[in-house]
């Protein structure tokens, strides 16, 4: 009889800790959903299991020795390095916060808490897989594991007229993007004869220019992959779905789409560009240049005319995808600015959507700017918290958004892309206008009928702490920059 040897050692399992914690939590929530009779108990216990999973994941991730060299595990399918640990901590935080800030809103949008929690945790397990994917197959599977639950989540609201339509739009365009990405992968595989990032990089380093970096088939594959990933991070011109889907989906789901999904997609993008195809950066940087410039313009211009805060934040997210991409020009040196921007943006936008949920009207999903009028008079604390998040998104000091923008603009300037950095500065000055429009509505206008149905103190407290964290990062950005730089410097 042949001895059966599992190709897994305990060191690998430790490195997989955060992923396993979230995956087991997802299965745990499904079990809880089947075990308890009463709807209320199901919701409560699935919430607890989800939070414990997030906590364990954050705990496991922070145990990683950050100075240790990265390595490939599980036969080269996954990386275990400081980069995955950085994003593990971020994603675990986002998961915990998403669950907490959404908790009281789920009733209002008629989504069953157990279903929301189960699908959200499942989607996050895909994200944890995505940030450590070391070959194209794992990347594709991780993207699908992340996206499929979110398609369902978008259409989960029982009472919503727009939710189903948003789900359909998201599904069709998301699947289109996945299929384009997959065809790109097929072409890249066809040229390089390998799926692993390290092997692809190795092939490009040894092959002649004609069969490697200048090969049209390979470049076509790379472009298709960038299109697919561009959809996922919602960079223009692949952003058309974003405003509709963000508006139509229930706000808790929008929170998850804007923070977790984008952060994981951005991490996977950086990992692929730096780890696999860095040698062709002359080619893809042109594409990234175009994506960044278009996103900054389309996002900021689109946001100007919006009266719906969810649509406004969707367009602002497109603009932020552009700023984020500026951080990529720092390659081949560490793209710490990119990682830091992703982290700061994800936390700020999660806070903004969380505060929006806190202000949400009973049974109504849409929050227009005029609904927020006078919020500063009725709920001064929460309005201050919302203001901090909006200022951070606008990039106004002393918030985290300013510090993060500083680092990505500096990266672009150092790489010689001064024009693009200038465009970034101009558009973000221009963009500050629409964030301030919301802030002014909250503080200057006369109170509208803003119910703020469940004034949950817990959610308020958590959001308040998050706002303090955003201010803290803004005043002392050094430590986050240090971690992001440490995590992103060894990708190449």
């Amino acid at each position: 009889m042949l001895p059966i040897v599992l190709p897994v050692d305990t060191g690998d399992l430790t490195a997989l800790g955060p992923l396993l914690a979230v995956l087991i939590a997802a299965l745990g929530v499904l079990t809880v959903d089947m075990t308890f009779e009463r709807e209320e108990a199901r919701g409560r216990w699935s919430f607890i299991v989800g939070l414990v999973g997030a906590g364990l994941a954050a705990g496991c991730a922070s145990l990683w020795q950050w100075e240790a060299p990265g390595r490939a595990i599980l036969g080269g399918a996954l990386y275990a390095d400081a980069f995955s640990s950085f994003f593990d901590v971020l994603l675990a935080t986002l998961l915990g916060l998403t669950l907490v800030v959404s908790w009281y809103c789920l009733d209002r949008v008629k989504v069953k808490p157990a279903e929301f929690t189960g699908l959200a945790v499942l989607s996050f397990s895909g994200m944890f897989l995505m940030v450590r994917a070391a070959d194209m197959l794992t990347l594709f599977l991780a993207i699908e594991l992340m996206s499929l639950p979110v398609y369902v989540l978008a259409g989960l609201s029982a009472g919503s007229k727009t939710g189903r339509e948003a789900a359909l739009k998201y599904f069709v365009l998301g699947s289109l993007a996945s299929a384009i990405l997959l065809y790109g992968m097929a072409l890249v595989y066809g040229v390089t004869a390998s799926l692993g990032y390290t092997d692809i990089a190795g092939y490009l380093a040894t092959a002649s220019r004609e069969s490697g970096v200048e090969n049209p088939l390979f470049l076509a594959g790379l472009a298709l992959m960038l299109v697919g990933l561009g959809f996922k991070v919602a960079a223009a011109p692949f952003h058309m779905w974003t405003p509709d889907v963000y508006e139509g989906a229930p706000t808790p789901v929008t929170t998850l789409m804007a923070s977790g999904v984008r952060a994981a997609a951005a991490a996977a993008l950086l990992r692929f560009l730096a780890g696999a195809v860095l040698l062709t950066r002359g080619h893809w940087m042109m594409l990234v240049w175009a994506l960044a410039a278009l996103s900054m313009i389309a996002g900021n211009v689109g946001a100007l005319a919006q009266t719906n805060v969810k649509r406004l934040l969707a367009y602002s997210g497109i603009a932020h995808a552009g700023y984020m991409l500026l951080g990529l020009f720092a390659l081949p040196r560490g793209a710490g600015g990119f990682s830091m921007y992703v982290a700061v943006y994800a936390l700020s936008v999660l806070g903004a959507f969380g505060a929006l949920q806190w202000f949400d009207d009973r049974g109504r999903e849409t929050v227009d700017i005029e609904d927020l009028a006078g919020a500063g008079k009725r709920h001064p604390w929460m309005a201050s918290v919302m203001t901090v998040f909006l200022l951070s998104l606008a990039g106004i000091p002393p918030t985290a958004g300013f510090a993060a923008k500083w680092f990505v603009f500096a990266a672009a300037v150092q790489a010689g892309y001064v024009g693009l950095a200038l465009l970034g500065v101009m558009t973000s000055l221009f963009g500050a206008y629409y964030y301030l429009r919301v802030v002014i509505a909250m503080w200057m206008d006369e109170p509208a009928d803003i119910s703020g149905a469940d004034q949950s103190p817990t959610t308020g407290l958590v959001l308040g702490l998050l706002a303090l964290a955003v201010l803290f990062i803004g005043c002392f950005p050094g430590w986050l920059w240090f971690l992001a730089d440490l995590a992103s410097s060894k990708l190449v």
Partner: protein
Amino acid sequence: MTPAPIHYLVVSALLFTTGVVGVLTRRNMLVILMAIELMLNGANLAFVAFSRMHHQLDGQVVSVFVMTVAAAEAAIGLAIVVQLFRQRGTVRVDETTLLRG
């Protein structure tokens, strides 16, 4: 004549293009779902053909995974279409536009 790998690649490119055009131009959701399947299968065929060209199994392994994913995706897509049909009574995308843009 035995078909060479390049023939398979041409077919895969045709399948993929048909799929893209289908998703972008057709208005019936069920046809759009089929077009997405065409795209995925086009990619699958390319993976298998390349795998044959390189004399290795990686590409074929990918195609097995992709088939699984495609099944899951089709299930979710059909579920969304059924829900939308119950709500609106139509499977045409141009008749379901509450959201602008």
